[in-house]
């Protein structure tokens, strides 16, 4: 068994309005960062995961991301294995 470092990014779907991101964008504009035209807030997870192979680690991580870490109604996810 090997230890794998997993990174999971959870994002709101493009079709879903993000009131938090919009508020951050508005604050940045107020601060003078006029070039920021959009902010989308998401979630980032770091996991240590023990598995036989990189493929197994990725499969487990994707299952966890799909079942628990994201809500498929409003979010999408991306899984990276960084060893």
């Amino acid at each position, binding site marked *: 068994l090997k230890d794998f470092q997993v990174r999971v990014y959870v994002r709101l779907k493009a*079709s*879903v*309005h993000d*009131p*938090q991101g919009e*508020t951050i964008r508005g604050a940045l504009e107020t601060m003078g960062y006029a070039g920021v035209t959009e902010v989308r807030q998401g979630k980032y997870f770091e996991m240590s995961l023990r598995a036989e192979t990189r493929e197994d680690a990725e499969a487990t991580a994707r299952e966890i991301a799909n079942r*628990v*870490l994201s*809500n498929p*109604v*409003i979010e999408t996810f991306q899984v990276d294995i960084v060893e």
Partner: protein
Amino acid sequence: MPRFAVLVFPGSNCEGDVLYALREVMGQEAELVWHKETSLAGFDAALLPGGFAHGDYLRPGAIARFSPIMEAVISMAEAGKPVIGICNGFQVLMEAGLLPGAMLRNRSLHYVCRYVDLRVESTATPLTNACTTGDILRMPIGHADGNFYAEAAELEKLETGCQVMLRYATPSGEPSEDANPNGSIHNIAGIVNERGNVVGLMPHLDRCYDSDLGTDHGLRMFRSLIASVS
């Protein structure tokens, strides 16, 4: 006499209000059931109360849906018995896949705690069978994540299937933008599943069963619930 189960998750905080309303106000048999239990045998309906199950960590309801008791809740729903999610309980039922849609952060980003006016859209539910379509109910809400969202196809299904139970409205019954406290799509405040036995709503019927509390419109929902299991 019917028996009601009031579920308790770590972080639930309205189970006492629901229990009091059922037992003391409505004179029913009701018991608290801890989320680690695995059976709801002997109960005719289950209520998931408001609060912050598991601290709302990750997403409201996201951890609670994996509690051992949820298997029994799903079986109860499949058996056609009433399953009612109030506020945080609504969020748990959506995360568990018993109701469609999801909650986003309120449009204002604030925790909203106030009275709202609600128009009854469907009376074919365990909470509104004692109401008439178009009735206006005044009830309290208290939540930060009550901005109901469903994708276009799902929304269409909810609307055409008469699964929208309540809409935020003006006191005269207009579901206007101004009357929408959280940004919910189509002003939706409560829905029922396709089968008509699983209900989720943001307003707290457990906080308005006596006019001393500001309004007693929650009584009509408790009466409906009792009628639906009798």
